[in-house]
């Protein structure tokens, strides 16, 4: 099991070796409601921390998913375009959005850990 981190935009980042897997949190999918469409980036796309990386839509809302860190996409989750509901049923597992390289490990360090994220959720409550 790698290291799990979170952003204030309710994305999770699982770091395993040189690769980060990115998705949206259980809280985020709950806020969006039934997810009907997901667009994931293609492998090879270069992302800067904070740039738009993916799109997630429910019936009445559309949100951008931002790159939590800088790096290059190595894989988009091919399951999601055909089965977007996976983001609702297993947001922090099979509902991952994309995997990417880690250009700057310090960016990962700056993200929240589980305890900090739980505290953040309680604050915005």
């Amino acid at each position, binding site marked *: 099991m790698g290291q799990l981190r979170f952003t204030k935009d309710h994305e999770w980042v699982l770091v395993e070796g040189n690769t980060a897997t990115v998705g949206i949190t259980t809280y985020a999918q709950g806020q969006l409601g*039934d997810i*009907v469409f997901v667009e994931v980036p293609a492998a090879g796309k270069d992302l800067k921390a904070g740039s738009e990386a993916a799109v997630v839509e*429910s019936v009445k809302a559309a949100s951008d998913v931002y790159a939590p860190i800088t790096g290059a996409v190595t894989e988009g989750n091919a399951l999601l375009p055909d089965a977007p509901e996976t983001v609702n049923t297993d947001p922090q597992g099979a509902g991952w959005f994309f995997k990417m390289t880690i250009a700057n490990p310090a960016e990962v360090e700056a993200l929240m850990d589980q305890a900090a994220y739980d505290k953040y959720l309680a604050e915005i409550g």
Partner: protein
Amino acid sequence: MTKPTTTSGNIGLQIEQALIFELNTSGSTAVDLPAAPKVRTRLGNLKNDKPIGLPGLSEPEVVRHYTRLSQKNYSIDTGFYPLGSCTMKHNPRLNEKMARLPGLADIHPFQPESTAQGAYELIDTLAHWLKTLTGMPAVAMSPAAGAHGELCGLMCIRAAHEANGQGARKTILVPESAHGTNPATAALCGYQVESVPATADGHVDVAALKAKLGPTVAAVMITNPNTCGLFETECIAIADAVHAAGAYFYMDGANFNALVGRVRIADLGVDAMHINLHKTFSTPHGGGGPGAGPTVLSKALADYAPVPFVVHDGKKFMVEEHAGFGAAAKSYGRMKGFQGQFGVFVRALSYILAMGADGLRQASGDAVLNANYLRARLSAELTPAFKGICMHEVVFDDEWLKGTGVTTLDVAKALIDEGFHPMTMYFPLVVHGALLMEPTETESKSTLDQFIASLLALARKAKQGDQAEWFKGAPYLAPRRRLDETRAARKPILRWQPVEAAAPVAKQAAE
């Protein structure tokens, strides 16, 4: 509560109706055309001999089909639409009758000017009313709807800035409470949007707006009265600050119906404003359109107006159809085919002439009176989002629903069973769980009283605390219960397909 079951699936006058494609009798048609004269075919090699796949129905079947469909619709002819910001007022049938006069319906946009003087005069007469009611010197008549009018105004603004060497201005300030069309329009006009917060009392935060003004701001777009149903009392101060900063003031005229005959837009410092003829001036919404969005312009912007526009040379009317020539020398171009939404112009003028200056002033008075009456009476159970008098619409938040498990959406759907169209929900975004209601001037006091009684009863029911489940199931009595929008969006079915062709869509179309 469940509906009674019948073999046909019909329930009394609510009759189920298949798709026209499912009613097909091959070879049937409801139109008998005369025989074609025998002449040589001159289609080159472009003639299509393959079937298109259109269904064939007889005339009685077609008439019954659409009559049944119509009976599944709510409409302003049926009942009350308290839809905030949408201005669902009575659509006089006189307008329809006038639009069908052969001299106004059976004329062509490119027939010689000498044979269409009445049409140009009609456009000019409507333009005169709109200019006089707003005090503005010019109006671009061709925009097709409100959002199109917004685009017209911003295009004029951008053209003016570029002509004045101010092309570096790339930002439009838009309040958080704005209609979604405002930021979408700004983006289409090549502008970045910067959001301006609202104050707790529902107005534009003037201090925050002033702080954002500067050499990169092209314009501000403000809806007035705003989407909280409040007049922007600082409007003139905002206009002065905007002009002092070298920017223009675009006013979204969606709510102009509250101001007609009461104040002239020009006296508020406005540079451009669109007018929704299908809201303020009673032309029908038609289940989504068409509308028209004539856009009044200040002197600073008038020269940049789009073609076509009507001019009068002292003897006759003429139309300027080409940007870059004559009176249109500085025009930014064209945004609509032909001569604009002429059929909508006819209807709007028919209404305006019927109402007259006195009737239009009375209409805005009654609209604001009706909205305040709703506010006063509904406040017995609901929580108004803002204190005090409102203009033509009133917004409540969902504070009164706290702890009931019932949402704004549930209340709205329960209203359907009471025979009313829901109010606008969850808009403006700055009000939590907003219920935005606009009664318009064409509703009687007895209709409002009936609506108030229904809504207050629903509110008391919601507050019982154990009714959430009942509310979630509403409506129970409409032609359909709540529809599965998630399913519609996840696996879109956007057209009928013959059963044997089924999915994927691509296959059939490619054949």
